[in-house]
């Protein structure tokens, strides 16, 4: 029996995702796809002068992918593209490997997803938004 991964932070971001909406002024957007379940995510970003000034997402996904993406946008909006990339790197490291306590602190609320690392089948859900963000940031330098 696995531990319950649906903590309050996750449930809350899933039910009330602040960033789940269209974003007409998006300077770039990208489609992420989780082929194992058919879930799909569109990520929109506004990047202004190297700073992520706004972002949103739409699509179909599970609580983990929605909450994870919402938490991610909370974290990166207002940061520079470089900081964004750094945080994506930390998050992926947390999920697929392990990170230090200091690094965990940097991820703020996203640390609530740490236990996903123990659920290989859900790793793709948790990382869908982040990998999509990574692609976007790399493409739009």
């Amino acid at each position, binding site marked *: 029996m696995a531990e319950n*991964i649906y903590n309050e932070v996750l449930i809350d971001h899933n039910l009330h995702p602040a960033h789940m909406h269209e974003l007409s002024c998006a300077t770039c957007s990208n489609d992420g796809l989780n082929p194992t*379940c*058919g879930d799909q995510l569109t990520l929109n970003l506004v990047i202004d002068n190297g700073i992520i000034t706004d972002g949103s997402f739409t699509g179909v996904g599970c609580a983990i992918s929605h909450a994870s993406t919402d938490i991610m946008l909370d974290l990166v909006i207002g940061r520079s593209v470089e900081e964004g990339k750094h945080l994506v790197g930390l998050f992926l490291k947390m999920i697929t490997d392990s990170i230090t306590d200091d690094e965990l602190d940097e991820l703020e609320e996203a640390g609530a997803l740490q236990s996903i690392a123990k659920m290989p089948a859900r790793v793709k859900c948790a990382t869908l938004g982040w990998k999509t963000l990574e692609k976007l940031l790399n493409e739009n330098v």
Partner: protein
Amino acid sequence: MLSGGVMRMSNRDFKQDFAVFDAYKELVYLDNSATTQKPRQVIEAIQKYYFEQNANPLRGLYDLSVMATEAYENARKSVKDFIGAESTREIVFTRNATESLNLISYSYGRANIKSGDEILVTISEHHSNLLPWQDLARQTGAVLRFLECDGSGAYTEEQLKQALTSKTKLFAIAQVSNIFGRINPIKEFAEICHANGTLIVCDAAQSVAHTPVNVRDLGVDFLAFSGHKMYAPMGIGVLYGREELLEKMPPFLYGGEMIELVTRENATYAELPHKFEAGTVNVGGAVGLHAAIEYIRKIGFETIMSREDELTERAFEKMKSLPYVHILGSDKAKDHHGIISFTIDGVHPHDAAAVFDADGIDIRAGHHCAQPLHKYLGVQSSARMSLAFYNDETDVDRFLQTLETVRGRMGIG
């Protein structure tokens, strides 16, 4: 008083045969359509084979190899009897149902299907009974056509008759859908196909463990299934084919054991069924399948079916009464034969499965290897609970208890 009868032999009785329920006393395993658990009898038979009869069979000139050959060919005989084939020449051991279906597509298909021919499948086929035909159509220029089910997951004789044309060479259909649990009227369909000169391929992956299957009674041309879904080990599957068809088909895999004479440039091939069994065969797997068949026989299909139907009904009626639960396929429990796929309003199937897992209940979520069906039904993905005769009322009740709390635990309602 059927209920009482079933309960008398229920509770822990059958679970005792399955060591996994000793290892995890609280385990509620409801993913039997994906793979079943294995009784001790099966694993012990495999062990006995490896410890007392193991050798490379078929060509051996010493006792151990003769024993291995007998073990292997007795397993074949037991499969033949189990599905009512006429001859062991019609029973080919493969790795799984998927390989069996690919064998038909590669060997029969590429030799007989031509550009412009039609291949008919249903929209609810498992990918393993769809993709080989997609590939065959691509390779040959044949056209792949689909039979679409009604809301209850059913296909009718009328519908089949209308879909068949003079060009339809082959119709591929599951006896039991792994989403709906419904039993398709294969016998009637076979008659309609044959009247049209169309071959019928029956995917029995979901039926053999749950209902008696007789190829002669069904009248199918080919039938495929996997051991691992019928209490046998992974890595062994079966292809049944009518002798007359297999006889004319070219080999599929080439190598040792499937030949008669080999020259530098050419080869002649062994008799059926060896022509289709290239390389060293999986005696251990065949022995395990044999033991599983004996085990099923011992329990008896009557018991298996009455237990599974009873448990299905128990789960189904409660699920139907929950307004936020939607069941795919028929709204009658008796059509489901141990398989109930469903969605829960507001909860993604993956999340539902994770909550069930937290309660020690194993169910599946996703597209269950049936993406075109989900698209056709307009459902992104679904959760599925699937029963075996070793499940009991406690399993179902624990499943239902969790089901009723899922939404709450996801913050809904």
